[in-house]
């Protein structure tokens, strides 16, 4: 009965695909959502390709999954992926529908699936990857994800016992998930810019997971990422099977040690988070059997798309669109850290409001107080214009960060807020916007460009 129901759901979902194309709705999760409605345990029966790898974690999972797909596809694999859809159960189901024929047989020889951490209980009971990559675990949405320990517990409870884990040794939260599972670790050794004491408000690994003693960090990259040792019991971050070191951003190179042998790599990105993504991909591809030479060759034809930041110069002003995921202290703190490390005078349009709740609910601003707005308290951040429904909350937060009141302007209307910017030639104007504020942010950018093309700064 189960299999028959599965086939009916599969056919119905497949029939929906041409209908969606005709109505220009392709690329959605509708086929998967329909299949799950008709057959709630649809994923139990989907045919699996001979090899499956899943990528999960707070940050970097899309980038890592995309790089894996690019390199593996180029090597001739027929991949099943959820790149075009979502990373929840309906998106994963949609990927399997596309990857199956009408008789329920797989058309692919490998699956690369990006999987939302919170969706683990709906996916892993049925889809059992050979490998699961966990990029890292950080705080995310307070409302959905609570705290990273909660997410780690969900992963531990739901990862299939037979899946081999590929884990970040520099992140003691994700490195300790599912302790019964076989695992390998990746890490990056000391880098320029590392610190020992945490500079961030978010610091979620302060005590030893074994004895609750104080952790000392030999080096810390940011937040809880780094190499930690317990001062009480000697517990330490695990040794890495894939250990990147001698990272030289200026020359674009790094070395990676595996089993005592060093391998040279060319960096394809300069941001630390993307270097982590590269090392993650190397570890995953080594587990899948590629040689270092094959991986290097793959990177030569791979680029990391920067969809969250774009730059354009108009009237002598650099306009930088910076997606700063709203309600996410970590994402915003990382962006503020990048801003403080960028030379030049900056004007900021602060509009990371969650537009989805602005009318029917009211955004919880608690996350702002876990976010390093203090990084913006600098001479070269010359103006901050707070816009949108939470403009007043932003002003208050900026004041508590020590930013002088004369630098701060409140203007709820985002377009008028753009008009209040100084718009001085030579300045960088950052438009900081949230995920669902993107369309509005780009309209504001167009308005700003229009102002700049007409010439002159703020009145």
């Amino acid at each position, binding site marked *: 009965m189960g299999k028959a129901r599965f086939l009916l759901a599969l056919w119905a979902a497949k029939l929906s695909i041409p209908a969606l194309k005709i109505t220009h709705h392709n690329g959605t999760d509708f086929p998967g959502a329909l299949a799950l409605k008709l057959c709630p345990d649809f994923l139990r029966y989907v045919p699996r390709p001979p090899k499956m790898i899943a990528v999960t974690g707070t940050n970097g999972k899309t980038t890592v999954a995309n790089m894996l797909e690019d390199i593996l596809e180029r090597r001739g694999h027929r991949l099943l992926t959820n790149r075009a859809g979502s990373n929840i159960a309906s998106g994963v189901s949609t990927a399997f529908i596309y990857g199956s024929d009408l008789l329920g047989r797989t058309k692919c020889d490998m699956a690369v699936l990006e999987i939302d951490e919170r969706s683990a209980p709906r996916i892993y009971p049925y889809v059992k990857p050979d490998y699961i990559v966990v990029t890292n675990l950080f705080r995310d949405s*307070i*409302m959905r994800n609570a705290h990273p320990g*909660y997410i780690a517990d969900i992963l531990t409870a739901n990862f299939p016992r037979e899946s081999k884990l590929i884990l970040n040794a520099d992140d003691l939260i994700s490195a300790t998930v599912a302790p019964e599972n076989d695992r390998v670790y990746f890490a990056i050794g000391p880098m320029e810019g590392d610190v020992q004491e945490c500079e961030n408000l978010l610091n979620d690994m302060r*005590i030893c997971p074994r004895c609750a003693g104080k952790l000392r960090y030999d080096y810390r990259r940011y937040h809880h990422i780094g190499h930690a040792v317990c001062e009480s019991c000697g517990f330490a971050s695990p040794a890495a099977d894939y250990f990147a070191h001698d990272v030289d951003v200026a020359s674009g190179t790094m070395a990676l040690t595996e089993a005592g042998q060093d391998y040279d790599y060319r960096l394809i990105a300069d941001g630390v988070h993307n270097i982590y993504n590269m090392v993650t991909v190397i570890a995953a591809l080594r587990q899948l059997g590629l040689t270092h030479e094959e991986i290097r060759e793959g990177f030569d034809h791979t680029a990391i798309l920067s969809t969250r930041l774009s730059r354009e110069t108009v009237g002598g002003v650099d306009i930088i669109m910076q997606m700063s995921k709203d309600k996410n202290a970590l994402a915003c703190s990382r962006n503020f850290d990048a801003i403080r490390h960028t030379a030049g005078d900056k004007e900021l349009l602060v509009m990371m409001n969650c537009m989805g709740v602005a009318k029917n609910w009211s955004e919880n601003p608690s996350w702002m*107080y876990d976010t390093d707005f203090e990084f913006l308290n600098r001479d070269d951040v010359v103006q901050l214009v707070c816009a949108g429904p939470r403009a007043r909350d932003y002003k208050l937060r900026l004041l*508590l960060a020590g930013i002088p009141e004369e630098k701060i302007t409140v203007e709820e209307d985002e377009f008028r807020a753009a008009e209040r910017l100084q718009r001085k030639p030579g300045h960088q104007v950052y438009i900081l916007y949230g995920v669902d504020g993107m369309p509005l942010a780009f309209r504001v950018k167009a308005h700003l460009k229009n102002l700049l093309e007409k010439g002159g700064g703020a009145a």
Partner: protein
Amino acid sequence: MKIEVLFSEVCNLYGDLANVRYLKACCPQLTIVETDLHTKPRFLSEDIGLVFMGSTTEQGLKLATEALMPWREEIAAKIDAGQRFLAVGNAVDMLTEGIRSDSGLAITGLGLVPGQAKYRMMQRHNSFFLGTFADMEIVGFKSLFGHIQGAGDAEAWFRAVRGVGRDGATAAEGFRRGGLMATSLIGPLLILNPPLTKWLLRRLGLDDTLAFEDAAMDSYRKRVAEFHEESRGWKY
């Protein structure tokens, strides 16, 4: 005057610690001292104006409760004698008789207030809260795995007008006992509620002038007005 922050190595979620930073901004002469999980709370043997404990993880709930349990009787006597103690978020749950979850979490609480916290780990409760206390309107947010059941008619801190109280259904929110002020509201409670902060500062015998008072009141008035709008549902 000293403010003692309990267990900031684990009780540090949801921006709760910003409450203490804000009090320090209001009264720069305040001294903030932090007590870790391995140290006896200082307020039991020192003159501490206010004790603060914020939200934590499930592991943090276990560790912090274990750390306080040896001093349960002394803590009860202190708060009954008027020791100011502000607990927010799930820190309140540690003060109840216990915490139980559908994932098997079972923690014996300090029993300073009645009731038991019951968590459903895959069904997070998110809501905004509009309530009253004395002549003030209180605004805040809940983001919790569950509520406190069985507290009966124990003295509450706030009364819900929109949103839910401590049991998820009725208006009684949080607890008062002696100097204890406890609420399940998370985050920057004092920053969001300048009238409440003024009240607290006065109770501590301090000048009630607030840091960034105009900006804080501006933000507060907007939020109060929003929370009164019937078109906004209080539940997320």
